[in-house]
């Protein structure tokens, strides 16, 4: 496979097409407009490809529901405010166990916020942004290569567990250009019996999330929950970077992790043995892996482009076994690795450990 130089948003589009995505509906919003633009061009060239510029984010996700039920690999994309609008449909897909891929190229918020890269949607993405008792798989890529790999994999995970899967990246990941190699996608393995295409001569099918009897609804909730536990067991992913000899571990994801890697190089030049723990699946969160790390490392510093969201999952994982500090830059501010390195030097003392312990 050839290495190509591409913009992040277009990489997502190309990876989706290669993974067999044949349906896209979306509504323009910065900073992810290159995704619908790319999909409109590419889906035109694919047999059976459907691109719809919908009247709203709400309509887009419900078009995706229809396409998914009808058996297509389907995707929608947006940025923070638009993802808020899609939550109704995401909850519905979780209830009805329909697969789809949802891209969130996060921007500054709350409200209209701005169009710069941010990580403030972590709770919405990982704690169930819509109503009701459900989870979705959330993947946090940190490079062009991962945008491609995880987008492809998102379709497989969505099918395997019949669930919406979200790619949680940000405006910076979408806009930057990096070399990428598109891997060969796996062939689709999705049973015909799940697809709604008319009853033929047989029994008619119902896809629904309305279950009026509380006992039946409870059973459905537990069935979904058992599925989520299987996902947590099988699909949790993280990356360790220079962690083997580390005295201090930075915890960051996505663009934040890229900045952290730069900071770690600088810190090591200054003689501080820093490493990185990077969750790749934000839900399921790599809780056990982080807890194991806290058995031998005493100091952690969480960095997010937000006022502190993932840090709560880090605290839940570590359960007071280590000292945890936090540095956040919300609002669309993207700090440099130098800034983060300086923050670490300020907040960490060899004898005391992390000074402003959370």
């Amino acid at each position: 496979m050839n290495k190509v130089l591409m913009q992040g948003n277009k990489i997502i589009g190309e990876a989706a097409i290669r993974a067999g995505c044949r349906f896209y509906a979306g509504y323009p919003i910065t900073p992810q407009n290159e995704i619908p633009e790319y999909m409109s061009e590419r889906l035109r060239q694919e047999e059976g490809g459907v691109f719809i510029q919908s009247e709203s984010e709400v309509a887009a996700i419900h078009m995706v529901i229809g396409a998914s039920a009808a058996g297509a690999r389907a995707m929608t994309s947006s940025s923070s405010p638009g993802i808020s609008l899609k939550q109704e449909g995401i909850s519905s897909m979780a209830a009805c166990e329909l697969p789809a891929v949802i891209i969130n190229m996060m921007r500054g918020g709350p409200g209209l916020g701005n169009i710069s890269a941010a990580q403030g949607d972590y709770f919405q993405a990982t704690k169930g942004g819509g109503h009701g008792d459900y989870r979705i798989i959330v993947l946090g890529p940190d490079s062009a290569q991962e945008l491609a790999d995880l987008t492809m994999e998102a379709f497989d995970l969505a099918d395997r567990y019949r669930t919406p899967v979200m790619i949680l990246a940000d405006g910076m990941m979408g806009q930057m250009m990096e070399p990428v190699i598109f891997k060969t996608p796996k062939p689709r393995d999705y049973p015909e019996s799940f697809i709604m295409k008319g009853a033929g001569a047989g029994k008619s099918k119902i896809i629904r999330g309305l279950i009026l009897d509380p006992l039946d609804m409870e059973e459905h909730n537990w069935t979904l929950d058992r599925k989520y536990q299987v996902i947590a067991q099988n699909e949790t992913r993280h990356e360790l970077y220079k962690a083997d000899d580390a005295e201090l571990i930075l915890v960051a994801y996505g663009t934040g992790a890229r900045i952290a890697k730069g900071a770690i190089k600088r810190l090591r030049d200054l003689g501080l043995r820093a490493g990185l723990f990077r969750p790749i699946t934000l839900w399921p969160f790599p809780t056990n892996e982080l807890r194991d790390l806290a058995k031998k490392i005493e100091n952690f510093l969480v960095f997010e482009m937000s006022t502190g969201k993932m840090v709560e999952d880090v605290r839940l994982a570590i359960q007071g076994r280590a000292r945890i500090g936090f540095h956040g830059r919300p609002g669309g501010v993207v700090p440099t690795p130098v800034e983060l390195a300086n923050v670490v030097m300020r907040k960490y003392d060899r004898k005391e450990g992390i000074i402003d312990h959370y």
Partner: protein
Amino acid sequence: MMKKVFGRPRSMKKNIFHYCAGCGHSIAHRLIAEVIDELDIRGITIGIPPAGCAVLAYNYFDVDMIEAQHGRGPATATGIKRVLPDRIVFSYQGDGDLAAIGIAESFHAANRGENITVVFINNAVYGMTGGQMAPTSMLGQKTTTSPVGRDIVLDGYPIQVSEIFSLLPGTAYIERCTVNSPASILKTRKAIRKAFQYQIDGLGFSLVEILSPCPTNWKMTPIESCRWIDEVMSKSFPLGVLKDLPAAEQKQKRGEQTP
């Protein structure tokens, strides 16, 4: 030998309707099922029930059905139809579903000329939630949220969905009917048949609006309800064909004037 003259349509399940006495939903359901049988499309039809009294329509229709969130039926129908263009896709929507919370999805599906059929039940009230004001409630109509009657200043006007949608070039067929008498029921059946036939022929968006009695929330007897449709409701919502694009085109070809 006895000849069977009346039976349950093949496209209906053997379930007893949960609808109130005198409600129009059960009649509309049956007409759709009869048309599906008649056109022999049961095996390729996919239906979408609304949120509202007809939310459980899949308990009655023996065709594939997928629920939609409130008002989103036409968006979900769009997704299905675009992926499976040779299937027959219909959404069944009430006045709150179509004309309030889902007006954007319905309007834009119509404007895109999606080749789907919408059966629109207009009973001028929110039925399932207990009789609140609908976007199609009559001026002066008392509901649980317009206790002194619908007021133009506070609540605006009843929305004439069929008239508005017929202005959209993407729509092929729009007719407003009712189900308050044997004759009107037969007329509605014809309209539903035409709407589905146009979809089969790939002509674009078709919509059948049905003025439908809701005795429970109108606080009337079923007979009074049927009369109210004639005497009040159909004055705001005149019955008839609002759009028949193929027929109009035929006429134009023959050099006749369209009214």
